[in-house]
């Protein structure tokens, strides 16, 4: 985290004593975290530790029951907050892509700009084409998702997330469903994005990615953030026993 952020700037995302339950299951326990503009934060942790849930609270796909979550100056759980406005500023990329199968690649990318921002069609198409260029598959514009490889689909999903010119990008295990030979092409796109200064929160176990571009790593277990630090810290001297055990398993 760059020092100049510390006092002068408000965090883009701020968790204050956030709790969440699914019924009786306490899945987020007292989350306190601040994420600043331009930061790349990698979230790691065992299955079921609440990584996805934490991510999905940020754009209101899940509700929190206690505490305060402020995103882009808006209190997410406040009844007066127009959640669609907040979501329009946040791109999200899922493990299983979730591209719209009945639309072409271009239509997938253009849908939100056309319907939410009411961008004129030719302008939306121009932006979508540029984004496809950026993720390296301009030739697939008129294809349907089912005609693409997994890696290509995920790159389209990233382009779709970027189409609204978001302030924040959320990634939930974007490479876990991919064949090994396709992981690199997706990570390369994400690294480029990180270097351009995009604010990113990435749930991933790709520690190579973390080492290269992450500003900070959060380790979650049992619904809490157990340990936080730079990627270097996690590679060289993790403190918590659970962190060490986990890292031994994935490295």
């Amino acid at each position, binding site marked *: 985290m760059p020092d100049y952020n510390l006092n002068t700037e408000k965090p883009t995302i701020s968790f204050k004593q956030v709790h969440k339950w699914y019924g009786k299951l306490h899945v987020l326990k007292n989350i306190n975290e601040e994420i600043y503009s331009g930061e790349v934060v990698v979230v790691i942790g065992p299955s079921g530790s609440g990584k996805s849930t934490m991510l999905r609270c940020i754009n209101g796909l899940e509700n929190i029951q206690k505490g305060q979550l402020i995103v882009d100056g808006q209190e997410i759980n406040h009844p007066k907050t127009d959640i669609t406005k907040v979501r329009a500023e946040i791109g999200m990329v899922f493990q299983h892509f979730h591209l*719209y199968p009945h639309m072409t690649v271009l239509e997938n990318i253009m849908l939100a700009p056309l319907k939410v921002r009411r961008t004129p069609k030719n302008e939306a198409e121009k932006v979508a084409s540029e984004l496809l260029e950026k993720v390296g598959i301009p030739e697939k514009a008129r294809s349907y998702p089912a005609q693409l490889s997994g890696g290509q689909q995920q790159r389209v999903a990233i382009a779709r997330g970027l189409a609204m010119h978001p302030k924040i990008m959320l990634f939930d295990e974007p490479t876990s469903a991919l064949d090994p030979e396709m992981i690199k092409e997706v990570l390369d796109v994400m690294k480029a994005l990180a270097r351009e200064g995009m604010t990113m929160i990435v749930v991933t176990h790709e520690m190579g990615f973390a080492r290269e571009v992450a500003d900070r790593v959060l380790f979650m277990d049992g619904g809490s953030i157990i340990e936080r630090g730079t990627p270097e810290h996690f590679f060289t001297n993790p403190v918590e026993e659970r962190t060490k055990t986990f890292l031994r398993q994935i490295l």
Partner: protein
Amino acid sequence: MNYNFNWMVLWDYRELLIQGLIITLKLSITSIILSTVIGIILGILRLAKNLAVRLVASAYVEFFLNTPLIIQLFFWYFALPMIFPEPVQMWLWEHNYEFISAVIGLTIYTSTFIAEAVRAGIQSIDKGQQEAALASGLSDFQTMWYVILPQAIRVVIPPICNQFLNLTKNSSLAMTIAVPELTHQAQAIEALTFRGFEAFTAATLIYIALTITISLLMSRIERWSAKGQQIVTA
């Protein structure tokens, strides 16, 4: 058995059969259109976020789904007018109320089956589609309209087609409330000529021709709706 067939009566009374066919068509097509619109709306409302909306839609569906159609027809035809003052009743009877009540009955009855098909179709679409659409900033309505329904429609067309066939066949029950549709007219020919076998054979063949036509039309629509997605299912 020494029944002498006389198929000529059908020719002599062709006017009645044709009039009956026209009424059956009017009744079926009107009810098909209305029940489709209402059924789709109901199917969506059954999945609404708002509990009250969901309960009302579910109560409607469960109630009319589980009542015999003929009772519903009798209710709309005999019972409903009673709650209106006499002048309104008179007006209703002067304005072909038997046809109107048959449309109401068939529409409401069939809309419940269509609502169930639509609900199942929507629920068959991967949750991730909805999440991706909402996450991109689309409203609930936009998500339904641009992302979920276009995918659900493919799943839903075959069961809805079956409901159209059922509705067309069920329209024959309208004869019990004096709608001069096809079955009614076949019965009229029987009463006039005692040629029941010929009259009802003719009606049967016309119904079969109708249902085959509907099936062919619907498979056309099905193929058309799948066009954009052919590669997906491949």
